[in-house]
């Protein structure tokens, strides 16, 4: 019973953390139409940033500044924002392919950097992070439950913030630019500036998710920032429904459950010689889910509710 409970908390924590990242992507893709092919770079920047700023000093590693936890978490978000600012500044004025390629590139470069740079932990990653307030709790289970509440609170706050944001004039502007850039421009709006703001904001939210993820495991390594994570986060958004924050969260829990369940089923029931290929089989399955969704239900399971005009919104 305790085992089931602690697994449920574990599952819900990871799914909630991923939900935050998916919400960040939804701001970029769903609301603004920006293709971010390198979610892991921003997720990873937040994760590494948090552990470097808040961790204890270690031989040969950069950082270990032992900053208070919330400041370290915030610092990780800032680092993710800076990476987004550089990439966005260079690509957002150009046609959309450039952003897709450059963000994909930044993810490859990020993984390559943390894998090779010894001061960032190299292939072993950064270990030995002291999780905040760990001493206050007797058992690991109680601590994990409390951490889950913390993550859930941040998820709800992020959700409310984004709901407010997209209902605000700024959110209307984002949709206007997504739907018709020229028309928005003719009204005196600057699409590239607005897009850059949305891109950075979305990436900062991904950085928050990364920071929480690293805190939860008290560890981060290049294995955690592989391109497959970008793909999973995208799958969650597409299945849930781009443009709809509720859909984004539902999609995350659904895909993460399907992913863990398929991994468990393959390791449990598949013959031994197939086990080596578990990853490949899962990747093919998730690939088919994505392509199938895009072909048959591109709006996702929970489509965006398009508000055509103010008066139409009032009538509903």
């Amino acid at each position, binding site marked *: 019973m305790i085992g089931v409970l602690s697994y449920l908390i574990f599952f819900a924590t990871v799914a909630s953390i991923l939900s935050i990242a998916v919400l960040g992507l939804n701001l970029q*893709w769903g609301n603004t*139409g920006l*293709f971010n*092919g390198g979610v892991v770079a921003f997720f990873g920047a937040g994760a590494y940033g948090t552990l470097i700023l808040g961790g204890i000093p270690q031989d040969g590693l950069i950082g270990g500044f032992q900053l208070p936890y919330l400041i370290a978490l915030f610092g990780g978000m800032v680092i993710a924002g800076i990476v987004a600012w550089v990439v966005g500044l*260079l*690509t957002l*004025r*150009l*046609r*959309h*392919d*450039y952003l*897709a*390629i*450059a963000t*994909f*590139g*930044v993810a*490859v*470069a990020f993984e*390559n*950097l943390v*894998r*090779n740079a010894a001061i960032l932990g190299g292939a072993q990653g950064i270990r030995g992070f002291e999780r905040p307030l760990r001493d206050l709790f007797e058992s690991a289970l109680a601590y994990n439950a409390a951490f889950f509440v913390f993550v859930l609170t941040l998820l709800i706050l992020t959700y409310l913030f984004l709901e407010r944001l997209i209902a605000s004039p700024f959110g209307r502007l984002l949709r206007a630019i997504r739907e018709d*850039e020229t028309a928005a421009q003719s009204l005196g709006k600057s699409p590239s500036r607005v897009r850059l703001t949305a891109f950075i904001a979305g990436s900062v939210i991904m950085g928050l998710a990364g920071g929480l993820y690293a805190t939860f495991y008290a560890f981060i390594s290049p294995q955690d920032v592989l*391109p497959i994570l970008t*793909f999973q986060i*995208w799958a969650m958004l*597409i299945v849930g429904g781009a443009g709809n924050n509720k859909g984004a969260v539902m999609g995350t829990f659904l895909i993460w459950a399907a992913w863990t369940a398929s991994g468990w089923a393959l390791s449990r029931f598949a013959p031994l010689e197939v086990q*080596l*290929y578990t*990853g*490949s*089989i899962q*990747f*093919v399955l*998730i*690939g*088919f889910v*994505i*392509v199938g969704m*895009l*072909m048959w239900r*591109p709006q996702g399971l929970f489509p965006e509710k398009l508000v055509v005009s103010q008066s139409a919104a009032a009538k509903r």
Partner: protein
Amino acid sequence: MIQNIVDGFLVGSILSLGAIGLTMAMHMLRFANFSHAELLSVGAYAALVFDALFSALLPVIDAAIGPLSLTWALTLATLVSMVITGLSAILIDKLVFKRVRAKGGELSMVFASFGVAMIIRNILGLIFGLDPVLYSQEIVFAIVVSREPFLLVKPDQVFTLIAALVIMFILHLVLSRTTFGYSLRAVAENPTLAQVSGINLNRMIVLIWLIGGGLAAAAGVFYGLTNQINPVLGRDLVLPIFAATIVGGIGSIYGAVLGGFLVGLASNLALVILPSGYSPAVPFLIILAVLVIRPHGLFGEERA
């Protein structure tokens, strides 16, 4: 240093072949196709299968040509593979991209291509295993061209470079001397006007996939010949090939050729100053540099 330059040219010729097809498809269908590099893997593995088949059917042709490790069987298999890969590219377009195009915007296509890449790469891994394979188990020794400065070249590498240049020259002739070439350039410049002039747009799209797939297959075989074949070949080459198209300017075929060589050279020269572990990140630095200095590439045109 000189070794890096020579290696850079060799890698560059492979990247160029891959980038030509990518830049054409990106220009015509207006989406960054992340699955293009997987066509190199498809081509490399298709050639592997037909090489084994031809060698078994006609053992005579399983003899190495001159000093190369390349056999007549593999040469024949490469040609078959180019056709098969071209047809697979058309099939993928019919099955996936065409439907997504009809359903949604251009940007869904980018993500669909992510999914297609994931499916192809992992199915290849499931069929052929995750370990690298080689076309020939025979060891072909590199020839010492000069000792001072030290330069090693394998006969296969020289052949690859020459063959790639010949293929590009043939493509140049087709583009500049045939009606098809004119139509292609017309469609690239102004699709509506081209259609009014009686050019069938859908047929051009099919031909672009066929050519792009064929060139990618050749690139894949050449990569396998000078390195090794593995299921993540496409994953490793996707960024350098994208970098080549951006350096050349998206849509420019000659730009893609030049871009391929530039990226190949720059990546190898970067190894002079950087530890080799960082080489996968170099294409990204090249992309950033181009975006800062000349956002539309060497031959690209400004287009929203």
